[in-house]
């Protein structure tokens, strides 16, 4: 670790600061951002911390530049991050596609606020769940993590760097306005496994930038400033990086880009579950909105209802295997709680052949209270 000052330590801090400190812990040495509520504290924290650890902070002219410069820094060998909110992520959409195509690791934090357009900058929301998944045009897979506590703002930011390096893909952490601003106690870790990107597996003269030798379909990544020459392009390309306009080239490339994430789903997907062994009804929630659910389930079980819950920690790729598991464990009903007009619920509805699906999907700005969820639950069970 470059920073010997970080020791196992408990601190009281905000979600945004915990996220930024997580990035420093993960080895992030480049941050480019543009001010936007409610994420600006991440940039402010990085502006202060990065020079201390030999890193670089830059406030760019807009979000288009912020994310693109992160991919530049990534190809110069640094771990890079940007942070924004919905309107900024809209601007980053274009370059998210570039990052996927160039297979450049980088982490994007989006602290969700209300939308569409300027929406409610100071409020929380979960309405960008589709945006994180489908921001850019074209067929691609992406990894999106959903923290629920300030501790997870720290932990999942570190995990985002690890996944990003391992699979050579931009990883998005989808937090929200409340989580970014609220303060909780966080354990800062010392012994964390940090994953570094795969290096070129052949000498410079044999190197082809998009040739993968392993089962994980991830090519070794050369960086600028070494003896490796390589050409990477946002155009559809072959393993040498040559632009290729044939249908076969499109199929080969897009299949590999998607498959490298699809086959890694068991390693990527993560969730918390409780009482699935006897639950007939399962409440599914994520992010800030999941925080009231354990209390609801506890109350319901005291009243004799067989209720369990799952909390998604990864939103995308969507954990299909969790849906199958819920059905195998015997639940017949899933209730999805989310602070939007129904996004994750549509993914869950793909499994209506396994259980019935209902939802509490409201485009609101405050998380559902346990009382509110409980009252709705009573109508369902």
């Amino acid at each position, binding site marked *: 670790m470059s920073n010997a000052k970080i020791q196992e330590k408990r601190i009281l801090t905000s979600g945004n600061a915990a996220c930024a400190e997580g990035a420093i812990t993960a080895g992030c040495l480049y941050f480019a951002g543009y001010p936007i509520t409610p994420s600006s504290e991440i940039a402010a924290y990085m502006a202060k911390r990065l020079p201390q650890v030999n890193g*670089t902070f830059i406030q760019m002219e807009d979000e288009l530049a912020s994310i693109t410069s992160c991919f530049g*820094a990534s190809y110069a060998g640094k771990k890079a991050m940007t942070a924004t909110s919905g309107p900024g992520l809209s601007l980053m959409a274009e370059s998210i596609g570039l990052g996927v195509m160039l297979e450049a690791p980088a982490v994007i934090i989006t602290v969700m606020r209300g939308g569409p357009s300027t929406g409610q900058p100071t409020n929380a929301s979960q309405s960008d769940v589709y945006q994180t998944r489908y921001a850019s045009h074209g067929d691609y897979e992406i990894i999106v993590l959903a923290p629920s506590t300030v501790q997870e703002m720290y932990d999942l930011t570190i995990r985002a760097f690890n996944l990003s390096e391992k699979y050579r893909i931009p990883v998005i952490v989808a937090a929200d306005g409340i989580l970014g601003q609220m303060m909780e106690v966080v354990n800062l870790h010392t012994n964390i496994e940090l994953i570094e990107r795969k290096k070129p597996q052949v000498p410079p003269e044999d190197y082809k930038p998009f040739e993968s030798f392993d089962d994980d379909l991830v090519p070794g990544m050369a960086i600028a400033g070494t003896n490796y*020459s390589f050409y990477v392009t946002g155009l559809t390309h072959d393993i040498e990086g040559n632009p290729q306009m044939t249908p076969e080239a499109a199929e080969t490339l897009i299949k590999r880009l998607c498959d490298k994430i699809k086959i890694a789903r068991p390693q990527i997907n993560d969730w918390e579950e409780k009482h699935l062994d006897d639950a007939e009804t399962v409440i599914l929630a994520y992010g800030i909105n999941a925080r009231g659910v354990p209390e609801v389930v506890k109350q319901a079980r005291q009243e004799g209802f067989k209720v369990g819950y799952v909390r998604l920690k990864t939103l995308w790729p969507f954990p299909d295997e969790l849906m199958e598991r819920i059905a195998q464990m015997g639940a017949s009903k899933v209730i999805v709680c989310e602070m939007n007009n129904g996004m994750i619920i549509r993914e869950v509805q793909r499994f209506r052949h396994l259980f019935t699906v209902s939802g509490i999907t409201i485009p609101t700005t405050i998380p559902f209270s346990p009382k509110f969820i409980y009252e709705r639950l009573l109508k369902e069970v």
Partner: protein
Amino acid sequence: MNPSNQMSIPSEAPSHPLIDMLNLNRFIFCPGCLIGTVITSITSCLKERGLTSKDYAIVSGIGCTGRSSGCFKAPAFHTTHGRAIPFATGLKLANPKLKVIVLSGDGDLFAIGGNHFIHAARRNIELTVLCINNNIYGMTGGQVAPTTQIGDITQTTPYGNVEPPFNLVSLAAAAGSTYVARWPGYDTLRLQKSIFKCIDNEGFSFIEVLAPCFVQYGSKNKLGDAVEMLEWLKKQVKIKVDWTPHQATFDFKKGIIICGEFVDEKREGYSKKIEQVRIEVQYKKIKNKDSKEEYD
């Protein structure tokens, strides 16, 4: 870009003098286009300076010139439309030892990427930016560009362009660029002298290279074929010494294009300044070892 004009390299062709530094199979430019001349000019300079592919990186955007990065045997990045400069900014700041060269067109750098250009110039970040100006969007079929002159016919100005163009030299100078020059693409000697100065300048350097597009611009405005257009350009070019950016007239109607060096000054570059901040911060940190501020 006219695909039917793509050059094919016969296998028995004599070896190119820069073969070690160029990917000849990625030269897809129309015969008569000066993009290739600019690429070889850059490569010649890099070679003469003894720089190898671990010392530099090439970044381009989208368009005809966007395809130029692939011609270099080096870390070369073909990014999205208008974003070459931000990508290059990240590369440079993450590895300040790299010489980072941005090579892109007038539409890419000054329409969709205009904001990035002025801010990079304002920061005086150590990048070399070459704009290959053909006064039109060539790749997409010849639409009006921010450099198209008033009255010119393009695909999207069939009755003549009514918008005044940017003067790229005065724009770059006003934004804070510490080296600004304009050369016709055929004048490779002066162009290469300029490229050397850019490589040595520890700040934001900009060269506008005039490279007429006979396929899109010439045909629509009845300026003839590639050779005739070069003759047409040559008649208008006036090379001046020590002229200011305000005097850098670019006017096809009057037939005057002032070329030369317009800005050449020393100002500390952005990555150097960032390094100074780091040193100051870390020195203070050592001095106040038990700083309580660390996690606030």
